[in-house]
């Protein structure tokens, strides 16, 4: 196989009437999904955008899924973006990307207006009924190869500029094979998708399903604030497999919602994106003692996941759940600062090699070269590894444990945030002398300390114009003077200590 669309075509051939994706609005079979995708792809052929990016500005829905595959049919690669993102940030991404077109829908029109984009804009409603141009589509397919980009996902950038991770067809094919094989995904599997389609976790749901001919329920986002309704929805949709961020799982157990609603069909619970609190894992296991639980770990730059741990024992409060062992067909290295392999039990940076690796960051050779480097253990031929920036070590059982970050990237509610991006946004205000952001993990508070005569209101406003909601600091502290260390850099440790003292 050389193109992920072959997964769709295979599934549509084997079980055309089987449900592929469904949400509150409608249910789409594999055959319908194939037809819609080919229609959209045919409409986009005139762009001649092979191997070029097409941005999707749509809300999560079965329509967005068709849009993604439609773009692939035209030979381009898709870039799903959050329509709610501030226009300023969308523009930043557009400057990096220079999209060949935007694919949107009528309900997202207002997000389009403030943008300075002058290229072609397609509305889903206008193109979904395009007659399929099978000849045109197969010509494009004949030219596609497995290392062509399938999608790019943008993540927070420490200097203020988001980074667009480009993933090719080959990686998704390799990854989806691991997903289906490891978790025994089949046509009976019904996924309950939580991850937005612009986050890498959605790749497991979408392509895991496509590989095995499963169904994916796109759970309405608002239900994640209402745990009882959420569980009722899961029950009524017969969802049996979920892959959620721990924050979403903790919402359910935090509210003891499983006391109110039973979900006997839910049998597989996978989680990733942040550290899973042991207390909540134990609660989930006590409610669903026969279910399968696994902790998955990996950055966007390795498609989604590179290691996993199947929960098979009880954990005490204070213990940390391992990130486990390498995925099949994925190589892991723990390297010290000197570039040699860490000794057993020694701490080091986790590096990944193999087909799951992304191609790099779109239009950013500098950042790409820093993160994707030659394997220092291989002096014989070019072989790239991705440096995750995560510190890990092996425990006595040979399981990998996550220790922490090398830098100032944090995870909050499962979202990846570079504290530097928040600081860069604050720095755009002329009157900000300097600032530093720290994350109070215990309370989930993002705290911004700043020096300079700025009205708090003006600062909040400036930040909301530049950063997505989940990156907005919950607390702002004005200081006459930020502490500096001997190097002249802002002493974040001192800030953190002072903050913790209260």
């Amino acid at each position, binding site marked *: 196989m050389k193109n992920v669309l072959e997964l769709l075509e295979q599934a549509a051939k084997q079980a055309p009437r089987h449900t592929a994706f469904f949400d509150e609005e409608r249910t789409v079979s594999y055959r319908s999904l194939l037809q819609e995708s080919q229609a959209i792809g045919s409409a986009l052929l005139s762009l001649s955008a092979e191997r070029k990016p097409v941005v999707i500005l749509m809300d999560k829905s079965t329509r967005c899924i068709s849009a993604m595959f439609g773009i692939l049919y035209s030979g381009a690669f898709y870039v799903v973006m959050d329509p709610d993102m501030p226009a300023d940030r969308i523009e930043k991404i557009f400057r990096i990307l220079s999209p060949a077109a935007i694919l949107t829908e009528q309900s997202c029109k207002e997000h389009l207006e403030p943008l300075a984009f002058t290229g072609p804009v397609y509305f889903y409603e206008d193109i979904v009924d395009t007659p399929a141009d099978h000849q045109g589509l197969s010509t494009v397919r004949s030219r596609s190869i497995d290392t062509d980009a399938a999608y790019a996902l943008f993540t927070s950038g420490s200097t203020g500029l988001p980074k667009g991770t480009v993933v090719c067809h080959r990686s998704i094919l390799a990854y989806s094979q691991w997903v289906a094989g490891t978790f025994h995904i089949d046509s009976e599997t019904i996924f309950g998708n939580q991850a937005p389609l612009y986050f890498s976790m959605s790749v497991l749901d979408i392509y895991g399903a496509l590989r095995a001919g499963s169904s994916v329920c796109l759970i309405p986002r608002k239900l994640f*604030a209402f745990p009882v309704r959420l569980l009722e929805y899961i029950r009524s949709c017969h969802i049996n497999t979920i892959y959620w961020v721990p924050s979403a799982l903790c919402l359910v157990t935090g509210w003891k919602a499983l006391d109110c609603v039973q979900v006997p069909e839910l049998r597989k619970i996978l989680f990733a994106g942040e550290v899973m609190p042991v207390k909540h894992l134990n609660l989930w296991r006590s409610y669903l003692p026969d279910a399968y639980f696994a902790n998955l770990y990996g950055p966007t730059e390795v498609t989604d996941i590179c290691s996993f741990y199947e929960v098979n024992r009880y954990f005490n409060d204070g213990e940390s759940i391992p990130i486990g062992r390498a995925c099949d067909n994925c190589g892991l290295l723990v390297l010290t600062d000197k570039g040699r392999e860490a000794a057993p039990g020694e701490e080091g940076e986790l590096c990944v090699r193999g087909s799951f690796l992304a191609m790099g960051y779109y239009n950013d050779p500098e950042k790409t070269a820093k993160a994707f480097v030659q394997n220092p253990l291989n002096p014989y031929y070019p072989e790239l590894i991705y440096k995750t920036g995560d510190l890990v070590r092996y425990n006595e059982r040979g399981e990998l444990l996550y220790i922490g970050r090398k830098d100032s990237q944090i995870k909050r509610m499962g979202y990846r945030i570079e504290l530097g991006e928040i600081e860069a946004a604050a720095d755009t205000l002329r009157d900000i002398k300097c600032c530093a952001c720290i994350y109070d993990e215990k309370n989930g508070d993002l705290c911004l300390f700043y020096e300079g005569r700025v009205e708090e209101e003006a600062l909040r406003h400036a930040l909301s114009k530049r950063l997505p909601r989940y990156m907005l600091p919950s607390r702002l502290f004005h200081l006459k003077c930020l502490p500096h260390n001997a190097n002249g850099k802002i002493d974040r440790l001192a800030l953190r200590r002072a903050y913790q003292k209260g």
Partner: protein
Amino acid sequence: MLFHKKEASSKNAEAETELPGISRLISILESMKPGVDFTNEISLIDSHILDSVDIMSLAMDIEEHFHVEVTPLEIVPENFQSANAIYEMILRLNAAR
């Protein structure tokens, strides 16, 4: 609820015997999300003004200020669409005490 509680407010909550009025609720909402017209807004959930984190935080504040237990069955969109809806829920929970 199993979520950690925020530090207690400065006022001695134990001294209040009467249920605080809706104005207390509105001031809690306003300090949580400054700039929103909570007196008139009737679509707090549908307009994405309050998200899942806000609701959790609000439920904790409600328990603390109104001395009611917010049960999971009450965490439904209809109860949070407006300050009035939230206060009606508080009255119900207070009557059930």
